[in-house]
C-alpha cells in the first residue's frame, strides 16, 4: 500500500471492493463460472475439483470482486459458515441437470439462510448448465428449492452456461447493483 493508492482510494478513483462467497454442491460449476468471469489471460485452461477453497479476483460492473470459491464436496460444506461473516454478496450455484441432488442443495441452502451471519446479504442463484438437454428452468428451480419463501433478503435467479458465459452478465449486473447499494463506507 503505497502513498498513491491511498490517495486514489480517498479520492474515489479506484474501484470499490466487494467480497462474494460462491457456494453450491460439488460439480455444480462454481469454479467454471468464476473462471469464466476472470480476465482471459489469468483464466485457467483446465479445472480440477477444488480442495478447500480458492480466492479469485476480477472486476465487473465497476466493482472489484474478491470471490471465495468454496469446495462443494460433503466434508467441506460444514466449513462454509466460517466465511459468511461480512460478505457483501453470495452466489449459490445449482446444477440444473442434477434433479436427484436438488433436495441436498435445498438442505444446504436452508442451513445457510438460517445462519445469523447471513442477514440482508443479496443472494444470486445461478441455475447452471442450461445448455444441457435435461436442464430445469429457473422457474422449476424456484419451485423445487422453495425460493419464494425468502422475503428478508434480496435474491435473484438466472440460467447460465459457464462454458460460454451465457447469462452471466445479466446475473452479475443484478448482484453488482444490489451490492453497490448496500456497501457501507
Amino acid at each position, binding site marked *: 500500500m503505497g502513498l498513491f493508492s491511498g490517495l486514489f482510494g480517498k479520492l474515489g478513483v479506484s474501484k470499490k471492493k466487494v467480497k462474494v462467497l460462491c457456494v453450491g454442491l460439488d460439480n455444480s460449476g462454481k469454479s467454471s463460472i468464476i473462471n469464466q468471469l476472470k480476465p482471459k489471460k489469468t483464466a485457467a485452461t483446465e479445472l480440477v475439483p477444488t480442495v478447500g477453497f480458492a480466492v479469485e479476483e476480477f472486476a465487473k460492473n465497476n466493482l472489484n470482486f474478491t470471490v471465495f470459491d468454496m*469446495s462443494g464436496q460433503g466434508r467441506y460444506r460444514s466449513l462454509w459458515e*466460517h466465511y459468511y461473516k461480512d460478505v457483501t454478496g453470495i452466489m449459490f450455484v445449482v446444477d440444473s441437470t442434477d434433479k436427484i441432488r436438488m433436495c441436498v442443495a435445498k438442505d444446504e441452502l436452508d442451513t445457510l439462510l438460517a445462519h445469523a451471519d447471513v442477514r440482508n446479504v443479496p443472494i444470486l442463484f445461478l441455475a447452471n448448465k442450461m445448455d444441457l438437454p435435461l436442464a430445469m428452468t429457473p422457474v422449476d428451480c424456484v419451485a423445487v428449492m422453495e425460493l419464494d419463501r425468502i422475503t428478508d433478503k434480496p435474491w435473484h435467479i438466472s440460467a447460465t452456461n459457464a462454458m460460454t458465459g451465457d447469462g452471466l452478465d445479466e446475473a452479475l449486473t443484478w448482484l453488482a447493483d444490489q451490492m453497490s447499494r448496500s456497501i457501507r463506507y
Partner: protein
Amino acid sequence: MQGGQALPPVEAQQSDWQTQGSQWLSGVKDAAMSTLATGGGGGKKDEDEVYSPFLGLEKSQVLQECRVFNDPQLNPRLCAQLITKILYMLGQGEQLSRSESTSIFFGVTKLFQAKDDHLRRMIYLVMKELNPSAEEVIIVTATLTKDMNSKQDLYRANAIRVLCKIISMTDPTMLGQIERHLKQALVDKNAFVAASALVSSIQLIRVNAEVVKRWVNEVQTALQSDNQTVQYHALALLHMIKKQDRLAVNKIVSSLTRTPIKSPLAQCLLIRFVKKVMDEEGGGGERDRTLLEFLEGTLRHKSDVVIYEGANALCGLPNVSQRELSPAITVLQLFLCSNKPTLRFAAARTLNRIAMLHPAAVTPCNMDLEGLINDANRSIATLAITTLLKTGSEAGVERLMKQITTFMSEIADEFKVIVVDAIRSMCIKFPQKHRLLMTFLSNMLREEGGFTYKKAIVDTILELIAQIPDAKEAGLMNLCEFIEDCEFTPLSTAILAVLGTEGPATAEPSSYIRFIYNRVVLENATVRASAVSALAKFGVQLPQLRSSIVTLLLRCLHDNDDEVRDRATLYCSMLQKMEVSPDDVFGIGPAQLCLQPLPVPLLALEHAVAQYLAQPSDEPFSVFNVTMSAEMLAAERKAAHEQSAARRKAENHDGGSRHQMMPGTPGKAAAKAVDASVDYLAKIPQFAHVGPRFSSSKPAALTDPETEYSCACIKHVYARHTILAFELRNTIDDQYLQDVRVALDLAGTAGLEVEVELPCPALPFGVAGQAFILLRRTEAAPTGSLGCTLRFRVREAHAETHEPLDSSAGYEDEYALEELELAAADYMKRLMVADFRAGWEGMGNGGEVIETFSLTYSGLPEAIRAIVDFLGMEVCEGTGTPQDGARTHTVLLSGAFLSGAQVLAIVNLRTESAKQVGMRLSVRSADKEISQFVASCVA
C-alpha cells in the same frame, strides 16, 4: 525470520530471509506503535525504560480485533500487525480455546485474498502456530498448493513448509497429491525453496517414509548444489532415507569422503555419520583406513567447527589408540590457547572426557590446561582443573583441589557436578587420597546447592563407601551429618537405607542410631518411615542393640502417619519375637525380610495374599507359594527392559562423563545397564531360592551381527547357581517365533545341571525377547565351552503387522549358535584395594602361584585389555595404561573370588616381538587352590 529459525546461519544466499527479517521487524515496530498509541502499553511511559511493545496485551481485546480479518476493505498492514500480536501472545504461553483458535484460523484463511507479501508471510507463520484440527485445516490445501506453484520464491518456500507441516500433522497419505510439486521444489534453483523442501521432507519422512524415499535422485542432485544450506539439508535427508541400510550409508560416506563438500555444517554432519559407521564396526576388528584418514583429514580443514567436530569424533572412537588420538589432541591443544572462549571450552570439554581413559594422551596439554585454571570463564576453568585432576599425579591433587575451592561458589551446579565426577574418579585412581577428597566432599555437602548437585555428591560418597573399605566410616559419618539438615527427601531416604545396611557392620554401630532416630522425630512421613526401617535393620543384625531398638520403635507406634505406624508395628513384633525364637514371616526370615528386596513382585504378592484371605487354609501363608501370571511376567520383563534401555541411553548421552570408566574396566557401563534386568530376575519366583547375586557378565554375542536371529547371553552368578539370560531378536519380518529356547550341551563340562528353563513364549519380528536357564553348579566354579542351539517353532507372519497368520500352524526349527564360554572371570568380582602393596605383602606368599605365558598380541595395550577382561579383576593404582612406546609394563589387579576370598595379582608384561607379548602372572590369595584356579585359567 522463518528461514532463520529452521536453518543455521549461512553467509551466502541470505538475501531472501534477510529482507523477510527486516519486514518482520518493521511489522513488530508498527504493531508496537499502534499498541502504544492506543494506550495498550500499560503503565506510564518512561523515556528511560524499554517496554515490550506488547506488554499487557489482553487476549479478549486481540480476539475482538480479529474482526478486521473479515473486512471487505482489507487493510493488510493492520492485519499483519494483528497476527504479530497473536504470535506474541502464543509465544507467551497464552492458551486459546478450541473455538477461539478455530475462529482465528478461519479469519486468517480469508487473508489469502490480499496480495501483500509481508502479510502473506505472517499468514504462513501463524498458520503453523494455530494447530488447527484435521477437519479444519484441509480448507487451505488448495490455496497452499497454488502458492507452492507461485512464481514468487517466497510464496513457494513458505507454502511448502506450511503444507508439509499440516500434512504430517493430519493426514500423511495426502502427501501423494503434492508429491510432484515437492519433488520439483527439492531441486528448485532458488536456495530458499530447495532448503524448505528438504527440511519439510525431513519432517515428512517420520510420518510417510515410503513416499519420501522415492525422491532419492532429487536429494542426490540437491547435494550437489552450490548453496551450502541446501547441501547441508540434503545430506541430512539423504542419510535419513538410507539410515536403515548400512551398506548404503557406507557408500554415501565413502563417496563423499572422496569428493569434499563445501558447507562446513554438512562436513560436520558427515563426520558424525562417519563416526557412527566406525562405532558400529566396533573396535574389535580392523579399522576402516579410508574413514580414519578422512577423519584425520578434517583436522586440516579451514573451518574451526569442522576441525573440532573431527577431533571430537576421533577422541570418541571405540577402543581408540594413543596413536590415533595424538593428531586430534594436537589440534585441541591449539584450541586451548585460542582467544575464542567457545573453542577453549569445547577443547577442554573433549579433553576432560577422554582424560580418564587416556591420561597419557592428554598429558601433553597439561601446560596449556594449567594456563586455564584461572580463566575468567569459570566453566572453562572447571573443565581445565578437573581434566588436570584426572591426568595429573597424586602430588598435584592437593594444589588443584585448593584452586578449585577458590571459585566453587561462582560456578553453576552443572559444573559443580563435573567437579564431583572428577573427585569420584580421583578416589578410584588414588585410593590413598580418600581422606582429603572425603573432606572436600563433606565441605561441598554443607554448601548451598540443588538436588542434582547434592545427589552427585551423595552418590560419590556412597560409591567410595562401597569401593574403599577404609573410607566407609568417615563416609557414613558425613552422610549422617548431611541428613541432619537435608531438604531432599529422596536423598534422605537413600542415605537411611545405606546406613541401615552398612552401619551395623562398623566398629561402633550405636553411634549412628542417634542420627537415625532424630529423623523419626524431625522429618516428614516418608523420611520417618525410612528411618523406622533403618532402625529395624540394626535391630535384626545386632542382638546387643535389639532391646534398645525395640524401645525406640515402640515410640513410633503413635505416629500420625499410617505407613510409619505400620512399619513400626511390624518391626516391633518381629524383633520382640526374635528374642524368643527366630520365627519367620510368611516364610522369609527377619534378616532377609529387612535386608533384601522381596523375592516376588509386590503385585503378585498382593494378589496372592488377597486370594489367601478369600480362601484361608490351615497352611500358613508363604511367599514361596506365590505364583506369577504370564501377563505379570511379561509386564515385568518389559519394565525391566525399558529401564535398562533408558539407563543405557542416559549413559550414552552423557558421553561417559558421569560414569567415568577406569582404564581397563570397559564393562562398568554395560554392567550398570544389566542391573535393571537383574533386579527383575530376583522377582521371578522360579529363581527366588538362588540368594543374592554375586556378579553379572557383559552380554556375550552368540550370533554374528546381521544374521536372521540374534542371541546374546548374560551370565548371572549366584552362590550355587548360574542364571543364563538370553537376549533374543528375530529379524525376519515374515516369521513369528514361538517357544524360543536355547538348548545347552553340558556333556563336555562337568559340574553343571539344568534346574529350570523359561523359554520365550513369543518372538515377533523386531521385538526383543528373553529366555532363561537356571543352572545348578555341583562343583564350585566350572569353566569351559557349552554348545548352544536355538530351538523354536516358526509360524509365517504378516509382513506388515508381523502377527502370525492363522493359516500357518508352524514347524519346529533350530539354529546353530556359537559356543558359550564359562570363564574364570565369571566367578570373580572387581574389588578396589586402598593400598595394593600393603595388601600384597600382608597376604604373604603362602597362597602364591606364579605362571609364565607367551601371548599372541601385537602390543601391550591390547594384551592388557585382554588379560583384564579375562581375569575380570579391578585395575589398581592407574596401572591400566602403559607409557607410550614402553616395552615392559606391570599391571596390578585386585578382585574377590566367588567364596568371598580376596585375590591379588601382579602381571608383568614384556613385548617379545611384533606379535608376541610375554607375561608373568603372580596370584596371591588366602587359599592356594583359588590362586591356582585363577592362574591356570589364562592358559
